[in-house]
C-alpha cells in the first residue's frame, strides 16, 4: 500500500508529461541510500535518495534502456558501493 502512495506522488508530477519507467526501492525507514548505474554509453551515474517512514522509495523517470535490476543502491553506512553494468 505504501509503495502505491510513493508511486502516486511520482504519477502526480508526471501527469502533465509522461515519465519513463519507475524502479521501486525498499529498505529501512527514513534512511539515505546511494544508487548507481551505467547508462547505454557506459557513463557512470551516482545519486542518492531517502526512503519514507515505511522504508519505500521510487527511482522514477528512468530511461527505458536501463534495466531497474541493474540499478544498485546501498545504504549510506555501507561505504563500499557496488555498481552494475547495463
Amino acid at each position, binding site marked *: 500500500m505504501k509503495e502505491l502512495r510513493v508511486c502516486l506522488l511520482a504519477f502526480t508530477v508526471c*501527469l502533465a*508529461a509522461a515519465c519513463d519507467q519507475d524502479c521501486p526501492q525498499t529498505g529501512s525507514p527514513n534512511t539515505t541510500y546511494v544508487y548507481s*548505474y551505467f547508462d547505454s554509453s557506459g557513463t557512470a551515474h551516482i*545519486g542518492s535518495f531517502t526512503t519514507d*517512514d515505511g522504508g519505500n522509495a521510487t527511482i522514477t*523517470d528512468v530511461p527505458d534502456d536501463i534495466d531497474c535490476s541493474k540499478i544498485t543502491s546501498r545504504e549510506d553506512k555501507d561505504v563500499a558501493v557496488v555498481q552494475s553494468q547495463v
Partner: protein
Amino acid sequence: MTHDGKRRAFLSRCIRYAAAAAAVACAVLLTAGALRTSALKGDGRAEARRQFQARVRDGVGRGVALAPRGSSQGEVRAAVNSVASFIERRSGVGLSGRTKGRLAELEARVSSGAARGLTLDELSEAVTAMALERLSSLSDRDVAYADETLRGFDAPGMPGHYNRDFALPGGVVFAGAPREKTVARLLAARDQSRSGPAGDVLKGMLRTVIRARVKDKARYLGESVPEMFGNTWDALGGRERDPSGGGGVTPLQAVLITYSLASDDYLSDGDGALAQRMQTRQKALTRAAGEEYPSPAGRRPFGVNGYLFSSPLDLVLDEQTVNRLLDRVEERSAA
C-alpha cells in the same frame, strides 16, 4: 501369491511409504523454511520500525517541548519557541515574531478547550489548499528556483559522476531527468493548479498523497513519542483520536507536521545523529564517486541546499503561506 510376488509387493509398499514420507518431509521443511523466512522478514521489519521510533524520540522527542492540554500562556509560548527553534536549527527557516505570537494564541485556545484540535482529514485539506495556492502563485523564476533546490545539495567541487537528480519529499527521485524536463513539469503543474477542471484533478491527486502522508506522520509520531503526539493518534487502537473527545491535531503540531512534509525531515535524529548522518553520507558518496564529495561542515541537513534533503522551504514556509495555513486551521478548529 508366490514368495517372489509377496516380496515385490512388500518392496513396492516400502517404496511408496518412503516416497510419501519423503514428500511429507519436504513439505514440512519447505513450510518451516517459508515460515522462518517470513518470521525473519517480519522480525527485520519490526526491528527497523523500533530503530526508527528510537530515532524519532532522539529527534523531536528530545528537541521539542510541546505544552500539554491546560498549560499556561507562558508554557504555550515556550512550546512555540521550542518548535520554531527546532525547525530553524535543522533547516534555517525561521518563523517571525508575529507568526509565533499568532500561533501561541491559537495553541492556547485549543489547550484551554476554547477551540478543538483538527482531524487528520481537516489538516490534510488545509495543507492541500495551502500547497495548491502556493503552487499557483509561483512565478517562472520561482519554478526554476524550486527545480534547482529540489536537485539536492550543491557546493563547489561536486564530483563529476554525481547526478544532482530532481527529488521530491517522500522518497521519489527522478533519475537522470534533465532540467528542462522537470522545469516543464513543474510549470505544467502550476498552470493546471490555476485552471478549473485540470486543477480539480491535480487537487484530488495531491489530496490523496497528502492525506496518506499526514496519516503516516501522525501514526509514527504517536507511536514513537506518545507523550507528545498521543492526542493525535491512539497507538494501541491504531487509529486517530477523536477531536470531540479532547484529541486532534493542535495548531502547533499542524505547523510541525507541515514542516516535516515539505522538508522531508522526518523529525528523527538529534543534532549529534544528524551530524553523523551527514558525515557518513559524505564518506559514502566520496567512495562511490571516486572523488571527494564536499564536506558537511557548517551545513544544515534540511531546507534550502540541505545536505540530506534540499527543498525550497523558504517558498513554502514564508510569512504569508504559513499564515494562510493558520487561517484554515483557525477556521476549522473553531467549528
